[in-house]
């Protein structure tokens, strides 16, 4: 599979109040063609800084990187010719219609007059804004603006799309529609998508692989399934007379990495399936099992396991 994004020791250091802030620290990353890559991390972890460096909009302090085979320092203009970007916070020109906005950006993407008309119509069709093409963008809802931003990217026939927290501020339906649109673009056009987010369910639903970023450092990269496998088993136990004695007894089983109480239930994380041992211990303690289920860990749990509570 062709590598679409590659970084080597990419680092960005800011200086504030005499302190060095490592926004991105020694980043080694590979994203492949046709992949939806989730870039996860808490606020301020360096997600946006990474994207801006990959687009050549800010210069790295050290290290290097390539997007679509172009160098991020020397060929950033070429990168912006093959890459689309939807920032977390952006605005179209609200006094202009959707068509005029797209036309303006299409001209700045060096498209010919015929190409502009054809591509705007096609992009607007894909994102489903046909009925709003002549409406001023000021009248658009956040969800519509987000779809328009996607249309704005599609007019340049990109190979890769960078999305920075794309569903923040959207209502649940708009979020679902937008996610569906992303999946469709990836499926139908084989677009590589670099999705920065802190919304775990979104990343889980969309991404083939995810990378966890913390304080500028990439601490883990793998598929969602693999992360879940590494977390082991999650067993939910509901018993009568839940107390510390029972928890102490369960801890004697071994292979248990963590036990926590959640809403009157015990959540037990273990490296193997220990339901049989649990039921024996509960019986020895003269308690009754109300429910005993095995569930895969959620991405939230993986997140907290990686970053700590």
């Amino acid at each position, binding site marked *: 599979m062709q590598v679409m994004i590659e970084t080597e020791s990419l680092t960005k250091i800011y200086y504030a109040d005499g302190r060095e802030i490592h926004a991105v620290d020694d980043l080694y990353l590979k994203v492949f063609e046709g992949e939806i890559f989730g870039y996860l991390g808490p606020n301020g972890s360096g997600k946006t800084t990474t994207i801006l460096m990959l*687009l050549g*909009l800010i210069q790295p302090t050290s290290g290097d990187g390539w997007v679509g085979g172009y160098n991020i320092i020397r060929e950033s*203009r*070429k990168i*912006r*010719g093959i*890459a*689309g*970007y939807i*920032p977390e*916070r*952006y*605005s*179209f*020109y609200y*006094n202009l219609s959707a068509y005029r906005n797209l036309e*303006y*950006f299409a*001209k*700045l*993407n*060096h498209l010919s007059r015929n190409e502009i008309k054809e591509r705007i119509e096609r992009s607007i069709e894909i994102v489903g804004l046909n009925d709003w093409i002549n409406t001023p963008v000021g009248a658009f809802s956040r969800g519509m603006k987000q779809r328009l*931003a996607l249309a*704005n990217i599609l007019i340049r026939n990109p190979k890769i799309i960078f999305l920075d927290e794309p569903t923040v501020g959207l209502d649940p339906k708009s979020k679902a529609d937008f996610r569906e649109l992303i999946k469709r673009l990836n499926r139908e056009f084989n677009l590589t998508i670099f999705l920065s987010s802190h919304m775990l369910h979104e990343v889980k639903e969309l991404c083939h692989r995810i990378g966890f970023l913390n304080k500028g450092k990439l601490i883990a990269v793998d598929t969602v399934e693999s992360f879940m496998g590494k977390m082991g088993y999650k067993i939910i136990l509901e018993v009568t007379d839940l107390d510390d004695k029972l928890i102490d007894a369960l801890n004697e089983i071994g292979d248990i990495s963590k036990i926590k109480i959640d809403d009157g239930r015990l959540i037990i994380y273990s490296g193997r399936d220990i339901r049989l041992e649990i039921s024996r211990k509960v019986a020895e303690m003269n308690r009754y099992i109300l429910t005993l289920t095995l569930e895969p860990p959620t991405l939230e749990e993986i997140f907290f396991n990686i970053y700590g509570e």
Partner: protein
Amino acid sequence: MSDSFIIALKEFSDNIVSRRFMILLTLLSALAILSSFAIVGHAYQALPFSDILVLGSISIVRLIGDVGPLLGIALSFDAINKEKETGSIMLLLSCPIYRDSVLTGKFLGGLLTISLSVVSMIMLLLGFTIAQLGIMPSKEEAIRLAIYMVISILYVSCYMALSLLTSTLTEKSSTSLLISISIWIFSTFLIPIIASAMASLIPSEQVEIKLKTITLIYMLSLNRHYDTLFGHDRDKLSIKSNFLLIDHLGNMLKGSVK
């Protein structure tokens, strides 16, 4: 079409429909019409036609010299930081363009708008004056007026460029406006006061030093350069006016070196 030109055309079309431009243009046009009436009151002096630019209490030279910078400031004090504030700059910069194309485009868009405004104002003044006096400028005078227009456009554009700079360097458009207005006030109103104050500190018998001091301080004021070209020394407003700016600056420099 170059990126700068695409941006310039959009800026120009945005500017000419903006409320702030409409208000300023209406105000300046009204003043130009008033100026033409003031000129008619001086018509008995039978001066060259091009002197209608400097006649009257609200001459067009005084008008553009003092109030014209406001037009330049109004057009670009938020040219960049407004795009930063709204976030449209990110969409703009994510296009395959150079950053300086954005600045050049903004400047050219403003220049087109200023050209339209200055030419409109002067044409309005000429139209009303010709209608009232019934005299037409000669060919030579028409060329002199054209040169005057070009220099006036450049003069207002200097303030626009300055405003564009403050807009690029500051985060908020309110800060940029404040800085630009301060520079305009300093250049137009404070420098003459400072020059007089400094001159008053020098003993009256040292006339030459006094003059040099005033000249040096006046050099800081763009407004005074413009005024000197067209207002103080009216005889110089001839067909050779296009060389006057260089002569004028050269004289100033000579004065300061001596």
